[in-house]
C-alpha cells in the first residue's frame, strides 16, 4: 500500500492537489498573496508570513488520529493508516 500511496501522492501533487501542496503553501495575512511556505516574507507586500500553512488550516477542519496524525473523515471508526480506534464524538465530549 505504501508504494501505491506514494504514487498517488505524486500524481496529486503533479496536478497541484493534495496535502504536500498544502504544506508548501501559506497565505499572506496582509495582502492574501499565496506564497511558498519556505519564505519568511511576502513577495508582494514584504510582510512577515504566518507560520501556519494551508495544511494546518485543513487539519483544523477535521479530527486527526491521536496516534499518527492522519486526518480522518467523520465516518471512520478506525484510522485507515495505523488502525488506531477513533474515539466517538460522544466520548470526546465527555473528556
Amino acid at each position, binding site marked *: 500500500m505504501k508504494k501505491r*500511496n506514494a504514487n498517488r501522492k505524486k500524481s496529486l501533487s503533479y496536478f497541484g492537489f493534495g496535502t504536500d501542496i498544502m504544506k508548501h503553501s501559506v497565505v499572506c495575512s496582509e495582502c*492574501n498573496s499565496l506564497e511558498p511556505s519556505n519564505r519568511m516574507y511576502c513577495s508582494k507586500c514584504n510582510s512577515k508570513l504566518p507560520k501556519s500553512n494551508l495544511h494546518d488550516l485543513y487539519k483544523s477542519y*477535521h479530527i486527526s488520529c491521536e496516534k499518527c496524525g492522519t486526518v480522518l473523515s467523520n465516518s471512520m471508526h478506525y484510522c*485507515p493508516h495505523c488502525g488506531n480506534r477513533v474515539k466517538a464524538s460522544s466520548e470526546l465530549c465527555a473528556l
Partner: protein
Amino acid sequence: MDVKKNKTASFKINKTPSGNIYEFFCDLSHALVYSSKPIRADNPEEELMRAWGEGGKEYFNRCQKCGKWVIDAMYNPDVWSCVQCVPIEDYPDYCPVCGAKSQELSNFCHVCGAKLFYGGEEENEKTERK
C-alpha cells in the same frame, strides 16, 4: 463574504478611473487568486460575471457539496469537493469501519465488506438520497 449563492468566489472591488478591478479569493484559504483588468459594464451583476468569466473562474474549483470556490490546494479531486467537506483519503492499510488489516489492492474489506476508499462518502450520499 458569500455572494448570491456562490455564483462566484468571494471578491473585492477596487474602483479605478478606468473601471472596476475585481479581485477573487479562494473561499477557504482566502488566497488572492485573480485580479481582473479594469471593467465597466451597465450593471454590477454584468460587470461581476464578466470579470469572473474573463479569467476568474478558470483558477477555481467548485465544491459539489457546499458550493464554495477553492484553489487546487484546497480541493479534493477524488470526490469533487472542497477539503473542508471531504478530507483527502489515502488507500487504507486498515479498514476504517472494522479496523481489520486491509489486503493489498482490494476495494472492499475482507472481514466486514465495507468499501475501503471513500467508503464513508458513499454512505453519506446514500443517506442523502433517501
